[in-house]
């Protein structure tokens, strides 16, 4: 797997770990994204962006982060962080095998198969 390990300012905020749980945060991260940040995010998502697009994304993504920063200013002490917009609990199913084999049908859609395997370009760690 070849993944960029370059450090961008975005590292500060993209980690779920560092999501604020209350507003008493002392450090205020730098919100504006630069082109390097956008390129890194694009690479992680395996998206190809040209220079023009990178500039546009940097601007629009920065606006989203500004909005988040506004929300960070709200005092949420004592509020349980929400994990899902709906007030729903997870539906559970009984542990039963209900699927029937449909391999042939699925593999007809695949670009390449051999000996029942899906074939992809060579990956070596």
């Amino acid at each position: 797997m070849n993944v960029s390990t370059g450090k961008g300012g975005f590292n500060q905020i993209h980690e779920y770990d560092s999501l604020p749980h209350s507003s008493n945060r002392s450090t205020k991260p730098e919100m504006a994204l630069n082109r390097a940040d956008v390129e890194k995010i694009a690479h992680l998502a395996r998206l190809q962006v040209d220079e023009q697009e990178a500039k546009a994304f940097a601007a629009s993504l920065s606006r989203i982060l500004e909005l988040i920063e506004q929300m960070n200013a709200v005092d949420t002490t004592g509020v349980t962080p929400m994990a899902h917009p709906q007030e729903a609990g997870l539906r559970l199913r009984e542990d039963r095998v209900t699927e029937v084999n449909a391999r042939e049908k699925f593999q007809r859609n695949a670009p390449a198969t051999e000996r029942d395997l899906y074939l992809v370009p060579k990956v070596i760690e």
Partner: protein
Amino acid sequence: MRWEPVIGLEVHIQLLTQSKIFSGESTRYGAEPNMQACAVDIALPGVLPVMNKEAVRMAVKFGLAVGAQINHRSVFARKNYFYPDLPKGYQISQYELPIVSRGHIDIEYDGAIKTIGITRAHLEEDAGKSLHEDFHGLTGIDLNRAGTPLLEIVSEPDMRSAQEAVSYLKKLHALVRYLQICDGNMQEGSFRCDANVSVRPRGQTELGTRSELKNINSFRFVEKAIKFEIERQIDVLEGGGTVVQETRLYDPGKDETRSMRSKEEAHDYRYFPDPDLPPLEFDESFVKAVKQTLPELPDAKRDRFMSQYGLNAYDAGVLTTAREMADYYEEVVSASGADPKLVANWVTGELSGYLNKDNREIADSAVSSTALAGMIKRIADSTISGKIAKEVLDAMWNGEGDADAVIEKRGLKQITDMSAIEKVVDEVLAANPVQVEQHASGEQKVFGYFVGQVMKATSGKANPKQVNEILEKKLRS
């Protein structure tokens, strides 16, 4: 400088469910490639995951068994990375709010008991398998395993040696099998271990930079890989270098670890709550219901074996390492009605020898618990001696039938007829006048020689106790 190793383990156990964690596809091992990969598993557009209740029960069961906090609300998150055996481009896991947190397992090492903390245990799905053999320069993907439920059990960095790490791992292995939430098969990958290893100068509180060891899927490899890694890091540090945080692969052939990739990318998983799955919530009654299904756990069983059967700690420990072994032992005790210590000797001794030799688990023993009980009964009622019993067991193991049939067929019934034994004793004494003379002049050790001769003459079938009695009587007169 004295160095202190610090080790934490991450263990992935495959949960023993019938179906996958988020789909109704089978989890059976060994199917033809992609026979067990449904639309959800291969991530066709428009599919949605539906959580398997049994996987939740099993995670809670584990949490209860290690005295952990069971979180009545936990959250599934997406761990994003690209690899062809991960069809969705993310793995559904738990990140910030796992189902189980803060438990512990007690290990015994060097006669002392040590508590190893369990940081957390969380539910997640397994990925598929990549086959890198030659497909004209391409890689083959089998998605049968994709979506198999896993419980990742993360320990605190509480272990200080490779041996402690192995003790912990063995304890955990026994536990999940007792709980019947994992078959523990390391070859098939049902029980996988990664180790985080670092060293620091003795007395220092902060941790050194760690490396993560992969591909250590046997108890022996875990020990060897960790030992190697500790030595390697000490060499680096003593040579004035610094340890790099990275993932290292253990190569059993060379008995060394080598760098796999920089761990820095770990910060690039971009976890976020999975919008397809609302929080997993259950109430205390669910937990209580799971609690009722908890079996007697290994430590409790060992203590009971010591008090109930009068076994020593070692035998009780050996017999309770696997639940199947403990059950087998108790079946033999109850079916034979014989001395529990005698039964323990046969199970941990001869029988285990045969199991090891044929590389079999107790569940596949060629001699069933009922059959072994039948044989031990014949020792208890003096039909055969312990020595002859070994021959009987060997025949039983090789399919010659039950103990009574073997004894009958081979004529192994012990000779308990006094006059018959007396006759042999007389013959032995008559044939060895020199030794009789020696005994008369006070050489007591010749006695053993006579016993041996009598046993030899009766092909070991004479009742040893009676032989002793008769010999004593005859030699005194």
